[in-house]
């Protein structure tokens, strides 16, 4: 046993897969210890806030201490972030219109562009062929640019309760800074929010853990059924084997997802918990394990040590437990790993169809994917809503496949590199 384990951990593929898997498992266990938010808690009003650090504007304006930092490039940065690409191209268009050669204008160079703009822009000037709306657009653009170029700060005003007039209570200068650690409300959303306004990372960690649980339950059920049927069919042979093989062949050709769809649809949305789905998946995916176990048992059945055991009058259960199971244990473990990873994929697929676990309980990887697809995150370019989910699914299943290939190479020397 110890020797086998050592051998297994010498396989590079297995170790890589094992490390990825353990890293995910540890994340799932440790993350909730530190961040105790409810995974389905809605924190954002609006859909798909991009990833980043969210600082309360109110708190930063009212923060007790403000710092003055004199940064040379602050103005340039501020303007660069306000002027979007379309505006820059429109400015270039105007400048070309008033007769500046196009190769002297570089929309990327903010300072030079603003310089040229200030020298050449004249709201009264009419460029032939320009429609009125466009002219107004340039006037607005000019106003906002001069607003950007202003050097004074913004005034904070408060309405006087008695007279109803605005009174200045403070001033925010352009060189004022706050220290983020002194702002009362800062929320880091490493993966933004989803369509419902939930923190994607917290939701994802919970979803991985639920999906892994679904995988384990389904995998163990499928492996147990497969093991029992395979052992019975392979060892007993005769009519038992015929029956086992009949059903195995039957359910190999009848697509299992068809049964899954029919069963989950019949159960109904309200009664479909994550566990129910896991059990249903387990009961529809035992076929491959049965086949593999049966084939192994048949090859073992007439080995000398089994025959010897039979002659010594051991019971069938004893023979199976001591003379057959240890020899097929590696196959069973490999089958279990494959079953777990495929169950996670199956849950995700079912959820995409809208037949996954009910949506109010816990998130799963499939449900998160389903929500992102329904709200068209992929078309809107909100990558944080679906890509981490896909990556999580792929990593779980990749790590398990790697472990499996590693094991396969340890136990089937012919496959070794």
């Amino acid at each position, binding site marked *: 046993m110890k020797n086998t384990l050592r051998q297994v951990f010498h396989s590079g593929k297995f170790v890589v897969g094992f490390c990825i898997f353990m890293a995910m498992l540890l994340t799932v266990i440790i993350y909730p210890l530190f961040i105790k938010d409810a995974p389905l808690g809605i924190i954002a009003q609006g859909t798909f806030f991009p990833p980043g650090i969210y600082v309360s504007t109110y708190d930063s304006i009212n923060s007790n201490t403000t710092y003055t930092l004199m940064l040379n490039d602050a103005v340039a940065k501020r303007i660069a972030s306000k002027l979007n690409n379309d505006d820059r191209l429109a400015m270039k268009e105007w400048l070309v219109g008033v007769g500046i050669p196009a190769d002297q204008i570089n929309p990327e160079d903010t300072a030079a562009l603003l310089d040229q703009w200030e020298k050449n822009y004249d709201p009264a000037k009419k460029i032939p062929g320009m429609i009125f709306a466009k002219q107004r657009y340039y006037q607005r653009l000019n106003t906002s640019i001069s607003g950007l170029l202003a050097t004074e700060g913004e005034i904070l005003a408060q309405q006087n309760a008695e007279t109803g007039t605005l009174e200045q209570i403070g001033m925010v200068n352009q060189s004022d800074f706050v220290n983020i650690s002194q702002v009362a409300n800062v929320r880091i959303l490493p993966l933004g929010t989803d369509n419902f306004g939930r923190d994607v990372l917290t939701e994802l960690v919970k979803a991985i853990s639920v999906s892994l649980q679904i995988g384990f339950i389904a995998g163990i059920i499928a492996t147990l059924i497969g093991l029992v049927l395979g052992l019975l069919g392979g060892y007993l042979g005769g009519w038992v084997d015929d029956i086992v093989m009949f059903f195995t*062949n*039957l359910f*190999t*050709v*009848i*697509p*299992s*997802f*068809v*049964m899954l*769809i*029919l*069963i989950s*649809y*019949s*159960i*109904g949305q309200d*009664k479909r918990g994550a566990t129910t789905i896991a059990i249903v998946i387990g009961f529809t995916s035992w076929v491959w394990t049965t086949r593999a176990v049966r084939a192994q048992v048949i090859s073992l059945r007439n080995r000398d040590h089994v025959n010897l055991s039979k002659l010594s009058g051991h019971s069938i259960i004893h023979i199976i437990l001591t003379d057959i199971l240890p020899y097929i244990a590696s196959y069973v473990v490999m089958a279990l790993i494959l079953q777990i*990873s495929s169950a996670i*994929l199956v849950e*995700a*697929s079912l959820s*995409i*169809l*809208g*037949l996954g676990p009910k949506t109010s309980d816990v998130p799963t990887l499939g449900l998160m*994917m389903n929500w992102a*697809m329904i709200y068209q995150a*992929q*078309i809107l*370019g909100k*990558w944080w809503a*679906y890509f981490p989910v*896909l990556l999580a*699914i*792929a*990593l779980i*299943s*990749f790590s398990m*496949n*790697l472990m499996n*290939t590693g094991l*396969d190479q340890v136990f089937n020397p*012919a*496959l070794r*590199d």
Partner: protein
Amino acid sequence: MKGYRKYFLNKLLWLLITAVFAFLLNFMLPRLMPGDPVAAITARLAQGMSNSTGMKAVYEQYQEQFGTNKPISEQLILYLKNISKGNFGRSFSQFPRPVADIIKSAILWTLALQLPAIIVGWLIGNTLGVLAAYIRKGFDKFLMPASLFISSLPAFGMAVILLVIFAVDLKWFPTSGGYGYDLIPNFSWKFIWSVIVHYQLPFWSIVMIAIGGQAIGMRSMSIYELNVDYVKYARFLGIKDRKIVGYVFRNAMLPQITGLALSLGTMVGGALFVEIIFNYPGLGYTLLNGIMGQDYPLISAVTMIITAMVLFATFAIEILYGFIDPRIKAAQSD
């Protein structure tokens, strides 16, 4: 030919048995579930309805329509009678369109998409598998983890990634549909071109999914085959590598054909999800619409058609296999 006929009849019998079982499952599963499906449907339809007499009327109407008030044997006969006439009932979500009509318009899209894609993916995957096994070092090192990773992605994941890269970012292909939404199906060049453009992304998604799994299987198969005596002998004789790979390919291919027959169900299932991601007007998309619209007759008809298609394709592959592998004939004529 005598041995082959026996093989053929054997497989035909098996096709019939599985068809009957699949049919029974399709019929029984929703009825075996705890709870009354008709009550569930009524509850969904009657949401917000406060009139209990009205709800009762709706319930009774559906009970009559599905025949759930009759004993189960009578229901089965009724069901059989309807199916044999090609009558799948009327769709709830697209009432009063007959389900058979909806299926008819979807099935061609699915066949035209999945059949070529699965075959192409299978061929490419197997070729890559043999190459990986033969070249081993380097190529194998790169290709093996890559195809493992690709085959770890669920089918819809591959579709989403291709969609985002080629349709949303690069805008080379449209994001959804089977043809331009501004076109009416006809035989003009514009329409055919639109169909071809819309076809690419779903097609290559299915191909990519098929490649990953097949390449890995073929690699192991070929590694076994490469250690067999005839390969060593051929090497001693100084036969060109390319020719040896050809032999190995043919021999390792045979189990892969059976493998295709066995995994066809899974592959078709995956391809259905590709259709869903691309809103391709095939059976997968119809199925999703059925589920979204709580349209039980449509769901049951789609699952039935998919099962029938998979069973028939499996049968066809096995028959073909009998032709290709002479050992089958020999085994049967003993």
